[in-house]
């Protein structure tokens, strides 16, 4: 056999390097081609316009001359901008935390009841996520309406005075966060439920035998097992919440006294409503670094976890 193989082998040896290389290359070429639509989509419709936005942010207000970082400098000196930063963080962080907690609790509750009934409950609990937020927020707006508030009507029956839901800074922030939690918690619920279902039952049984209470089982078994999905969902939601536009826009339009303006609405306000497109772009741009820091933390944590397992 060796005698037969050897000549062929030497014959092939000449062009082996290149053809071996070709084979490897062919696979990665195909792979690259398959990923190309994704790459093009990101490059043309996200990266390029984002780069263009950076350029826009460096123009003067009338967009006639290049001012470099002037606009950014200007923004950093504005009190309103820092209010917006504070409010965006407050809004996003508290909303995400509550969404995560509610999602976690509800996912456990649903997981806890017999499989037969889960479908129905899941369906009902998912409704807020399915209704386009621009519309569901209108329902909230109507519920909070100063003249017709259905909540105040109930409160009045308990002898509690009308609450200025969107009229007072504290309440307005509360309302905006509440609506965001309402709209976003079901998504967490469904992601966590999926994660819960992939936690092996034996782990629970083992923990139960080890004497863990239900709370301890959740804490020591479910939480670590769901860690990655919790982190990824939180990151995704943090980004989306931070960049939120619809809810604030419809509910309070940033008021009262700019107390509920966040990045998205504020950049719209200065960029479109007040005709300062470079400033609007610059305000929006500030979102990226803040979120990138959060993303870096969360993603690093995930990859570290991943290598442990």
């Amino acid at each position, binding site marked *: *056999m*060796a005698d037969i*193989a050897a000549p*062929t*082998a030497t*014959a092939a040896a000449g062009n082996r390097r290149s053809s071996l290389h070709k084979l490897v290359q062919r696979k990665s070429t195909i792979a690259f081609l398959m990923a190309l639509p994704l790459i093009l989509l990101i490059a043309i419709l996200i990266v390029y316009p984002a780069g263009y936005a950076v350029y826009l942010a460096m123009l003067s207000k009338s967009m006639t001359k290049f001012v470099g970082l002037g606009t950014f400098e200007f923004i950093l000196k504005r009190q309103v901008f820092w209010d917006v930063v504070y409010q965006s963080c407050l809004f996003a962080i508290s909303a995400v935390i509550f969404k995560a907690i509610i999602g976690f609790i509800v996912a456990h509750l649903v997981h806890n009841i017999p499989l037969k009934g889960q479908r129905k409950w899941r369906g009902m609990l998912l409704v807020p996520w399915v209704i386009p937020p621009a519309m569901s927020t209108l329902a909230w707006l109507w519920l909070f309406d100063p003249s017709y508030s259905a909540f105040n009507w109930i409160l009045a029956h308990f002898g509690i005075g009308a609450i200025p839901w969107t009229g007072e800074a504290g309440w307005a922030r509360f309302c905006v966060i509440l609506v965001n939690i309402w709209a976003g918690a079901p998504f967490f619920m469904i992601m966590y439920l999926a994660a819960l279902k992939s936690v092996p039952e034996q782990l629970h049984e083992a923990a139960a035998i080890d004497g863990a209470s239900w709370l301890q089982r959740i804490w020591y078994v479910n939480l670590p097992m769901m860690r990655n999905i919790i982190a990824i969902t939180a990151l995704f939601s943090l980004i989306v919440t931070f960049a939120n536009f619809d809810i604030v826009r419809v509910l309070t339009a940033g008021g009262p006294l700019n107390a509920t303006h966040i990045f998205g609405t504020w950049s719209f306000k200065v960029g479109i409503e007040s005709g300062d497109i470079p400033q609007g772009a610059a305000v929006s741009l500030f979102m990226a670094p803040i979120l990138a820091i959060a993303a870096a933390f969360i993603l690093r944590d995930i990859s570290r976890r991943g290598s442990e397992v």
Partner: protein
Amino acid sequence: MAQVTLRKVVKKYDEVMAVRGVDLDIADKEFIVLVGPSGCGKSTTLRMIAGLEEISGGDIAIGGDVVNDVPPKDRDIAMVFQNYALYPHMNVYENMSFGLKLKRTPRNEIEQRVKQAAQILDITELLDRKPKQLSGGQRQRVAMGRAIVRDPKVFLFDEPLSNLDAKLRVQMRTEIKKVHQKVRTTTVYVTHDQVEAMTLADRVVVMNAGLIEQVGSPNDLYHLPATKFVAGFIGSPAMNFIPCQLEQAAGALRIRLNDKLSMPVPASRTKRYASFAGKPDLVLGLRPEHISETRPHAEPDQHDFDMPIEVVEPMGMETLVYFTVNNTEICGRVNPDAGSAAGQAMKLRADLSKMHLIDNSTGKVL
């Protein structure tokens, strides 16, 4: 002609050498088993033959043609995976016919070949089922069926039995052997289980740390291991390795285990071992079956000695006894009726005619 030839085959992952130069000739119709501990490179070697891994160096030829650059589908091979890798959304028939369909084999031919393979494997009545509805053994058969249907030059098995329970494993082992006898296709079989290797193989290839330790028939490997690794890997319970010295005393060679215990080297070996007298770092290798209870009359090269027994493991047809010499735990196989008991001394007999002397520094059997 479906011989498989490996010449100086090397596989490198970044900095790690998984296979460090393997030379192997596999004859047509031969059943070769690659065996070794996990991480020894046996699976990598198999996957390089299959074309699933690129070859970092050397050549692989199937049927005389170098296939280094040939994609798996053109190598005319079939592979059975450890987890069977059945397509979960296809039924058994579709699973078996998928490869033929891709090759645009005529329909009636596909049907005929699937039926035939199903008959060989006795899975005709399972053809409409989905993999989910099959037991482990049945899945195993389907995976083999999928390989047989393609009528390849070479069968590749990657630990096909390790997901089965002990009983099924034995049963399927025989099944595989039977199938091989029927279809007579060159087979490369990878396992970490030396029993499987011994029972199935025409020749066994023992691999360790990316290199071939020894190639040979099961009997050769058992009786004439070339290295300490092979000696220790083949056979169960494993061979005892006892540190020892070789003494030249009064013209006779003796193996000295400790101050109290020494035994003469069999006459047939004296010449072979003579030059190693006084060499440091020697190890005596003796299989448990060559340490037995003492019997009325001794053959030459059999030596009796007394030992306090520490652990006794009755196995039914035999009993394993464990004791310690030179801080090394040693296992012997005695007759269940020999009256062994833990904590008591026992008279045992070592059959040195079956001994191996190993140079621990090189790992070679001398």
